[in-house]
């Protein structure tokens, strides 16, 4: 549990830093969101999907990868988590929605 507590503390600090970096303009926080995604992924590895914090971490890893501009990583993590044994339908649907929303937002920006 100490490892999980430490990871939770680190992800709190990383999200805080990414939010503040984002205030300096779009794209200014890509490195910070990549750090968040990495920490969320570590949490997802140690907390089962049956636990609420495990589902929050899985969504967080995908969300942060997309906010870092790393679509490939976001898509790949979403597919991994959706295919995992025991993943509830609600998590699968929310991950699908996160990826689709990102795709729509990217298309709208490129028009």
């Amino acid at each position: 549990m100490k490892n999980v507590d430490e990871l939770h503390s680190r992800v709190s600090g990383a999200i805080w830093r990414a939010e503040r970096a984002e205030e300096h303009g779009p794209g200014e926080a890509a490195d910070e969101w990549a750090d968040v995604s990495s920490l969320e992924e570590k949490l997802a590895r140690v907390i089962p999907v049956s636990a609420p914090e495990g589902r929050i971490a899985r969504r967080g890893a995908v969300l942060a990868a997309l906010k870092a501009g790393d679509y490939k990583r976001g898509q790949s993590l979403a597919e991994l988590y959706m295919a995992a044994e025991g993943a509830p339908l609600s998590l699968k649907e929310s991950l699908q929605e996160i990826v689709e929303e990102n795709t729509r937002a990217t298309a709208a920006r490129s028009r």
Partner: protein
Amino acid sequence: MEIQIGRLREMHPGLPPELASVMVERAALAFQRSGHSPGVGVAWDCDRAPYEGTFSWPDADMGSVDQHDQNRITEDGAEAVALVLAHRHHEWRVLRRMQREEHADWLLEYHSGDRRELVALEVSGIARRSIWERLSEKLLRVSKTTDVDQRWAGVVGFERPTAALRNVRHEDHEER
């Protein structure tokens, strides 16, 4: 009841130390910017019950106020106050910060006997004006959070020091 904002990290050991320190400093700057001193009398609301007491904080150097973004002083200061109140009233502790797409700022936990519950808390600060309209907005927002047992919103006002922490209830959901 005396609310000591400087005890934020002691109440929430899950907060990174540097983050807790910035939050406490900004709470101090937010109150002092509005002309208040540590020990100010405050009336606040916790889940529709009224409370009175004092808020105290480590005195901040107002010479540094221009080094901080003014909105960040309000928002980060409000987060410090709301987290201290959440611990004083319910003994909740920070588990982690949430990404904005989760519709809450903090995930907190508490233990009641063998039972462990998770609480989503969405927080906002108001430099001037009433806190109540913002509280309704924040309750609506946090009502969308999933994978938690309880959903709460907290709003802190600094001009005339006040705060409210409320649970999302059935009547709040009806607005959706």
